[in-house]
């Protein structure tokens, strides 16, 4: 970190390597956030299934307090 600032240049666009790294990391984290999932247990379904369907669905968590 102690040297003079280094830059990345494409044509007339110039940006410091440090700032470019931050922006690149932003894009990477954004992509991961969209693609990955919060670890841990989740309800089997994101929606409330009608009772008629629930009755025949072995994956439906009947003990779910909700």
């Amino acid at each position: 970190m102690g040297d003079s600032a280094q830059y990345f240049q494409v044509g007339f666009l110039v940006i410091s390597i440090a700032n470019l790294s931050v922006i690149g990391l932003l894009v990477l984290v954004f992509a991961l956030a969209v693609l990955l999932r919060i670890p841990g247990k989740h309800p089997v379904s994101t929606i409330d299934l009608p009772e008629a369907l629930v009755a025949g669905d072995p994956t439906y968590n009947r003990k779910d307090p909700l």
Partner: protein
Amino acid sequence: MNLTTAIRERVRRWMPLEDLLPDRLPAFVRSPAYFFGVLTLSSLVMLIITGLLLSAFGPQWWHDSGVGRFVNGIHFWCAQTFFFALTLHLWTEFFKGAWRHGRRWTWVTGALLFVGGIGTAFTGYLSQTNFDAQWIAASAKDALNGVLVGAFFNVMNFGQMYGFHVVILPLFLGLLVAVHLVQVRIRGVVRPYALDVPTERAREAHWSGKLVLPSDQVRYYAGLRLMPYDLIREGLIALAFVAVVGIVLAGTLSSPDDPPLTIQQYAQEKPGDFVTTATAEISGTSILAQYGPPYNTGTGSVQYLGPVSLQQLGGVTHPIDTGQTYVLEPLTIAAQSDPALATALQTFAAASADQQTKWEDAYATALGTATTDKGQLTVPAGDYGPYGTLMNRLLGMATSGALDGILLRSKGFYQNDFTKPLLFLAEGALPDKAKAANLLGSQWGMMNETHNYPGQSWLWLYTLWYQLPPFSTTAAANADALIWLLMAVLTLLLVIFPFIPFLNRLPYHLGVHRLIWREYYRDARGAPGKEALPVAPPSAPPLVPLSAVEQTQERLG
């Protein structure tokens, strides 16, 4: 009417604790994209904690003490995590179309937080009292002067910038954060886009109207699975995460803090350059002497938007007569104990303007062949009248540090306005040092940080334009005014984006939401072997069948 009762009942109806601190969230909340809001808030908490410490102990502490530098480092890195998380929060909320179903003003307060955060960070960088702060101030002053703002917002006034950074803007941000959080909790997180456009439009029409309280979240989420969720625990984990990141980065990478440049240092290292600058100031040929508002009535750095100059509208609010300020007034003070200097000053003052100019020109020409040895400037003999004595004494005052002190003086005992010495240094000394640090020109100093530390990368969209034609070519003379006007318009569009017809549907067409909520769309379309689920069909008044509401309420007990 009892106002206390009325307000209490209204707060109770509009902000029930069950909504402000819910222990259940919709089960479609599965993406880390939902973390960035709480990470932003956690970074803000860390900034407040470290900022309070920095304020309590003051600038000397954060420059000279090991502990102070460490806390300053945490503050620096938490500013980075704040904008990192805030930018991601803004992106993810954009792709979710988070302003839908009555949340437009939530977006507005969030966007204003982004803008206010930029202002707060900017004034923080200006308050560092180091070389970075000097260079950012020197780089930014032209932009702010060009759009009138510089007339009353002086980036070279440490006292003003520090006040903005630690009081005014944090209060503004704190208020916005409180309003934003209440808005988020009253409405809850937005539902995924409906499977079909007519349903989504009907849902928008229904929920963008007035809320029917107090059970609207129950109705809004009807048909959706809710799951247990611990918001407070999530907040504490996020706070711990940001604290660890800030502490580790401050501990391993420290933070940039190059010492400020002084006139004394400038005069000692480059006496010839110092005297050349001083000569330009008294002869009225310097950049500053011809600058224009807010420093004088010149036109050299005045910018225009078409036929209009906002810069001139502001007038001269920080008057500086360069010859008097940087040469004659300091020498007059020194002449009180220096008879030879007093005589030289009298001779110079008694001479005609033409004669003064001849002396100054002759001396300026001779400076081209002047020599420097161990900080001593030797100018070849010539017909300079008293001017050689004046410059010799001024150089002596500068190398002793007296000129730094004189330029800082004001009517008060405490000095915190660095406008005069900084403007003098901005004539050449600061750009030279910035050039040596590779911070010049098309890289635009306001965004950059010394060495290889990340700077204000969140200003990239603002600084990008300076590198693009015509701002970098034919319109360069008015680039500040033009770019800041352009960015003001773009920032306004960002703030009011939810209110712009057609454009506010852009996230739906971009389709990123299908990745964020992919489980919801999988479930809503129906798993293999099941029929498609009737999720809020357009024919079901008012989008949510009453039976679904009853079912949900029954489950909630």
